[in-house]
């Protein structure tokens, strides 16, 4: 199973986890632009190899500056706090200053997400079928 990205983890983790992670956002972090909601135009490739725009996805975007590095995040959904946390973690990781307690929270949230996706996969796998044709068909 694919390892979830930081933004995926933040877009899907529980509210309580977001609240705890927010406590780790450094107070001296600059916001060149306020976190904002917006849309991403989702472009897809279909079976004839042509691309088209499937539609737009509601997202939240944040950009932060801290100790000379820039953190950036886009999270599916419209919760600016989630994108702010993801951008802050991005910046802290670049500056090699992400607290271990925060990384532990991220790791736990990733594990929960993988567990939920594992359940989806398990439910799907249990419905794998091999149909047989009726005799004479």
């Amino acid at each position, binding site marked *: 199973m694919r390892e979830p990205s930081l933004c*995926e983890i933040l877009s899907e983790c529980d509210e309580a986890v977001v609240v705890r992670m927010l406590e780790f956002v450094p107070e001296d972090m600059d916001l060149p632009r306020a976190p904002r909601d917006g849309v991403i135009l989702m472009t*897809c490739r279909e079976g*004839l190899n042509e691309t*088209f725009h499937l539609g737009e996805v509601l*997202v939240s975007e944040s950009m932060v500056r801290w100790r000379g590095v820039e953190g*950036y995040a*886009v999270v599916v959904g419209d919760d600016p706090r989630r994108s702010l946390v993801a951008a802050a973690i991005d910046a802290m990781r670049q500056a090699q200053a992400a607290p271990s307690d925060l990384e532990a929270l991220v790791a736990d949230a990733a594990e929960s997400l993988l567990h939920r996706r594992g359940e989806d996969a398990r439910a799907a*796998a249990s419905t794998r079928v091999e149909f047989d044709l009726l005799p004479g068909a």
Partner: protein
Amino acid sequence: MSYVAVQGGRDAIERACESYEHRRSGRTSAPLELDQIREQLHLAVDRVMGEGGLYAPEHASLAFRQAAGDTFEAAFLLRAHRATLPRIAQSEVCSTGPMRVIRRISSAFKEVPGGQILGPTSDYILRLLELDPLEDPVERRNHLRERLFSGKEPEGGIPDEFPRVVELLRREGLVQAVSTTSEEPFDITRRSMLYPAPRSARLQSMARAETGALLFLAYSSMRGYGDIHPTLAELRVGYVPLTVTNPVTGRTFVAGEVLVTEAEVVSRFSEPGGEPRFHLGCGMCFGHNELKAISMGVLDRCLRSTAPSCPAEDQEFVLYHADGIESMGFANHWKLPHYVDFLSDLDRLRKAREVAHARA
């Protein structure tokens, strides 16, 4: 005919809005919570997102509740909300290859690489009303979890990627070759469509079209008003990673997952002077909406007809009339005051009758 501006009635309109909300909130039932709608009426929520053209499950649930379950109105609310938001970026080109599949079937082949995964479906049961639920809903939910997740893991698991079924046909040269065009896709939200429209515009337009309208048009072709009798090469439902580019570093990352339904239909086709082979029709939409994806796949194939012979093959007919919000808006506008036009009509009718009576 056109409607006419009127004034007055402010109090009555305010009461009408309150009356609507009062009726929607019910008499004695518990208020509907958004998470109940999102989780338990997910197919309706998915339909609203698809027709609204905005993937936003929370907002679609809110719209569905506000519209008292009217999917047209809910999709309108969602599309109107979208108009207030900035477009931050365009995604990288997403493919359904790495889709995290929850359902994947083929009606063309019994055995397909990766296997057939029935997933969450009611396709194989009798559709009978459960008039006498045997269990408390919460107990039932726990029982289902127990059934699905206890005991040993199912054998085989789910592959990270499923090959496309249509590739089996393509390898033998039995299905049309893939396109080699590298054109930037048309964006119908930024430019007006002109006909004949590029295929990318047609697909985008149908991806946000109303489910029933697409079904109606595709069904007309299946029944004989047209000649597309499709076989479903593959239907897949699952979560596609939404990949975006970090404007600071230029690196790509996954922002989250988007639930998508994709259908690929094939139908036999003979080109004058060419070999007979299958042509492919593709349908794709937000959320879990199989009827919409299949109908869109059939219409994608119909709309590539070089000599349209029926409504489902006529681009203008299909694309102008399949958008639920446009058609709903026009049908609804007849409820607005047309007093002046109608008086003029009445006047002309009376005069015509006078002339007719004078001649008699």
